[in-house]
């Protein structure tokens, strides 16, 4: 058993030092009725090669993004991850360390968290950001709870352009609290009236930019209406690559920004783990959930970093904490921050531009396919089209031809028949002109 360093003679000597005859006697507090005397009915231990063979066989049953022209998004995006990112996050001092509660032996983790918080604040246009949350959806639920704490109001309004998983996670997490959740109908055409619903009963309005169906929105008027009624504006960013090109939520008057950071440094990995981003205004700092890293000095007066303001957290505040979360998404935050460091200001903008250019090219090409209509007037790297056939069937047919051609909107909203023909399509820097051509050609044939 390659992970176990004790030898039989070690075990014997150690039992003697303890003064018990066998390991079983150390388990004497376990009620006999619950003890297992034999190994559980599962396979016995296996060497690396055997495990690798078995898991590789499972992996081989999946069609990967690299094997097929790939156009899926809906909150998880396939971006190129520079080789250095994955190398650096696998350094054992990062990978195998715990939460940096002992700052003298965790300055590496703490400094990158400080840099991460700065990057998130910069790209979202906000004053402060935390050290990350589990994912965009759970960050959204935490934002709703925080808005209720800040405003002491008991209702949140969720836009129909917010990611459906963020909506359902928020509704679930608030289900057993006294906070009501109103979720508007899915809104592919961008016609919902949020300003008209803003009133002094609301803790917050949660919107998303770009919207779930791709379109871009200017929230300045909504922000003004919110301010007048004491309502917090929460803006979600499911594709942070967009922030290289479009006006950030902070510039549109957001009070809280939440995001999914998976696009930077974190692979798709079937949707998890992800990376929740969370930023706000300094005046709401004390109500912010999650860990925070701050700068200070050490006993010799040198600058250093510590986790701070932890009295908000569960290990001190227990049932009065701002949130029950304990871990964040440290290693994914590291991947994000390295990728962002590699891009720099110039690369961040260029990446966004290439994404947008590819999406525009894809939209133009798909619009020429008979029966396909692009319904997002504005977009970043993802948009919605309507098809003359049910989108789910078309996607299956495309998969049969080795093309991963988007996400059917009805997958999220089975009870909305009007979404049956709607398909979400994304392009990133990883798509080539040949990919786009193959997709459009196959789509044309399937719809013929």
């Amino acid at each position: 058993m390659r992970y176990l360093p004790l030898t039989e003679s070690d075990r014997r000597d150690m039992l003697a030092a303890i003064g018990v005859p066998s390991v079983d006697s150390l388990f004497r507090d376990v009620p006999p009725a619950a003890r297992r005397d034999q190994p559980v009915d599962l396979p016995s231990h296996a060497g690396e090669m055997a495990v690798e063979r078995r898991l590789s066989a499972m992996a081989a049953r999946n069609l990967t993004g690299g094997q097929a022209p790939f156009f899926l998004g809906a909150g998880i995006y396939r971006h190129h991850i520079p080789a250095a990112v994955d190398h650096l996050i696998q350094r054992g001092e990062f990978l195998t360390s715990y939460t940096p509660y002992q700052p003298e032996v965790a300055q590496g983790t703490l400094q990158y968290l400080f840099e991460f918080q700065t990057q998130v604040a910069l790209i979202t246009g906000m004053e402060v950001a935390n050290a990350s949350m589990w994912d965009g959806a759970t960050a959204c639920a935490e934002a709703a709870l925080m808005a209720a704490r800040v405003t002491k109001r008991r209702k949140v309004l969720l836009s129909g352009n917010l990611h459906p998983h963020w909506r359902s996670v928020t509704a679930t997490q608030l289900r057993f609290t006294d906070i009501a959740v109103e979720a508007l109908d899915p809104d592919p055409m961008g016609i919902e009236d949020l300003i008209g619903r803003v009133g002094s009963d609301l803790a917050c309005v949660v919107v998303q930019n770009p919207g779930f169906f791709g379109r871009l929105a200017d929230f300045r008027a909504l922000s003004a209406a919110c301010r007048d009624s004491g309502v917090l504006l929460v803006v979600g960013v499911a594709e942070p690559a967009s922030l290289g090109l479009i006006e950030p939520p902070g510039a549109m008057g957001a009070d809280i920004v939440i995001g999914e950071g998976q696009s930077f440094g974190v692979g798709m990995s079937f949707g998890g783990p992800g990376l929740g981003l969370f930023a706000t205004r300094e005046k709401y700092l004390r109500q912010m959930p999650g860990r925070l890293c701050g700068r200070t000095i050490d006993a010799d007066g040198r600058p250093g970093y510590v986790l701070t303001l932890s009295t908000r957290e569960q290990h001190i505040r227990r049932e009065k904490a701002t949130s029950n979360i304990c871990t964040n998404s440290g290693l994914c935050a590291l991947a994000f921050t390295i990728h962002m460091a590699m891009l720099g200001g110039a690369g961040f903008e260029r990446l966004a531009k290439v994404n947008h250019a590819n999406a525009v090219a894809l939209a133009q090409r798909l619009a020429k396919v008979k029966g396909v209509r692009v319904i997002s007037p504005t977009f970043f790297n993802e948009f919605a089209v309507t098809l003359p056939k049910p989108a789910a069937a078309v996607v299956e047919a495309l998969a049969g031809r080795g093309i991963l051609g988007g996400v059917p909107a009805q997958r999220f909203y089975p009870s909305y028949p009007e979404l049956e023909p709607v398909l979400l399509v994304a392009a990133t820097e990883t798509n080539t002109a040949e990919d786009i051509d193959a997709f459009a050609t196959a789509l044309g044939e399937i719809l013929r």
Partner: protein
Amino acid sequence: MSEMRYTKDHEWLRVEGQTATVGITDYAQTQLGDVVYVELPEPGVILAKGGEAAVVESVKAASEVYSPASGEVTQANQALVERPGAINTDATGEGWFYKIRLTEPAQVAELMDQATYDAYLAELG
């Protein structure tokens, strides 16, 4: 200076006519360690005896301050927000939390006097 009265949760109260000043005791600040943050009640807030009046936090602990008596908050010590360390250096002076107009002055007599509180502290060890 009028007489100090104390609660079992280590708040102090000093009566000056119809109003009283409230803070936490030197023992309480020692237990907490360096105070880094306080949340004070807004003037005008009505507090009941034993109700949550303020929050005081050190690096590793947070605790509520309960009002030793009922009444209406007339003033909060805003200087503490900028300089919470005053609670450590001068808990019963500059480190006061808020002033309150007493609605039930009889409650004061229910609180511990100096000698009783000293004995209570000795008991805590």
